[in-house]
């Protein structure tokens, strides 16, 4: 499995663990509604698992984004900064937030796989 999920509705794709892609889930963007602003992390900074790494704001509300697995941010999605609604239109693709060089692979394995995340959504 290369894509895993957090209980806070982030996803991380670890195909390349030196540049694992992180975004918010379809459910997260739907719950937030029209996304109008994103605050992206600092490139070059290391964030611990669970640390606030960004903010997503819709018309109605602001939500923190948490780091799924410890590592150094190596790239942020400038296209998303310019057009935050990308996270609504294509949250698992073009609407990605940042890439992280994951330094603690065991933390990745502790995340939810797609069936576990689907089960979580069913309970909401």
């Amino acid at each position, binding site marked *: 499995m290369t894509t895993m999920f957090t209980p806070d509705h982030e996803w991380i794709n670890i195909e390349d663990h030196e540049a694992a892609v992180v975004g918010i889930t379809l459910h997260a963007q739907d719950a937030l*509604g029209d996304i109008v602003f994103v605050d992206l992390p600092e490139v070059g900074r290391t964030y611990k698992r669970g640390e606030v790494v960004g903010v997503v704001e819709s*018309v109605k509300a602001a939500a923190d984004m948490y780091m799924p697995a410890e590592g150094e941010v190596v790239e942020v999605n400038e296209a998303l900064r310019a057009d935050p609604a990308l996270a609504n239109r294509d949250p698992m693709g073009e609407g990605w937030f940042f890439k992280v060089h994951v330094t603690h692979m065991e933390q990745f394995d502790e995340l939810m796989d797609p069936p576990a995340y689907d089960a979580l959504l069913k309970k909401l």
Partner: protein
Amino acid sequence: MSTDLSKTPLHDLHAELGAKMVPFAGYAMPVNYPAGIIAEHKQCRDSAALFDVSHMGQLRLVGDDAARALEALVPVDVVDLGLHKQRYALFTNPSGGILDDLMITRREGDLLVIVNAACKAADTQHLITHIGARCTVVPLPDRALLALQGPKAVNALSRLEAGVARLTFMTGGAFRLAGADCYVTRSGYTGEDGFEISVPADQAVALAMALLREPEVKPAGLGARDTLRLEAGLCLYGHDIDSKTTPVEAALTWAIQKVRRPGGARAGGYPGAAVVEAQLASGAPVKRVGLVGLERVPVREGAVLVDAQGRRLGHVTSGTLAPTVNQPVAMAYLAANHAQLHHEVFAEVRGKRVPMRVAAMPFVPHGYFRG
């Protein structure tokens, strides 16, 4: 969603339309439909949007002394209000704070009063306690309230009843719409031309469906209603005004007619008049202002406002990224000496200082039809 929430007569229709329901003032209310807040907001600015506002309180005040009695609770000229004329008003408390804001319409035989959902129980009690001996206070729980708002609202509604097109802003009349005996006012809470329609609860769904069949009309939820009213510079009770803010601090002195001010024929005589009159004469220490953000980050309710040295100047009471303005806008209370137009202040957002500028309201020009 908790099952002890009240439902409006349109509850099942909201579900059919795919609304996302949220608890609001004890009611399950649609925050948005599948189109989303921004699309619903634009629908209202460009065409026409239908809002269910049946959670709001509707009351009749009946009796020859009703207008004069109501003046004992509001700093507003009710006595001189002409037949089928509507006026904005405020219930004040003994400190001059605002207990609620409301709309008053003089009809044949009564005053129709529309109050906020969250305040309606307290307002009803307030009216009964203070003026119940002078007029009869009649709550109208069997009526729903629909708001049809937008530049094309008149096109849609006049297809149901041509007479509504003759109404001008802040006037009303009785009309039969889709077989229901309605009372329609040309007013609203979006800054656009439009109508608010008081309709018998059991005929509300039929009327709503008739309006939604008109090509100009789509449903809109409370989310869009909030962004629309904020762009229009209209206060939200419990946020921009409350029992601790006075009409002068809230920059609502336009709602106090000359006849109720010092020197006027019926000056004072409402709760907190001494406080309000002192502030009318020499100003208030704080003032409600509009702010426009100079960066893209939305600045929301609760954000602290500071000067360049970090000294606290006030706080934000409503704010978002405004869909029509396409910039962050906010309402805030600022120390009076910082409240002048174009003054620059900083909002603290997640530890950063975001520059904002005091701006004239409304942020989007009103589209009212004044005839």
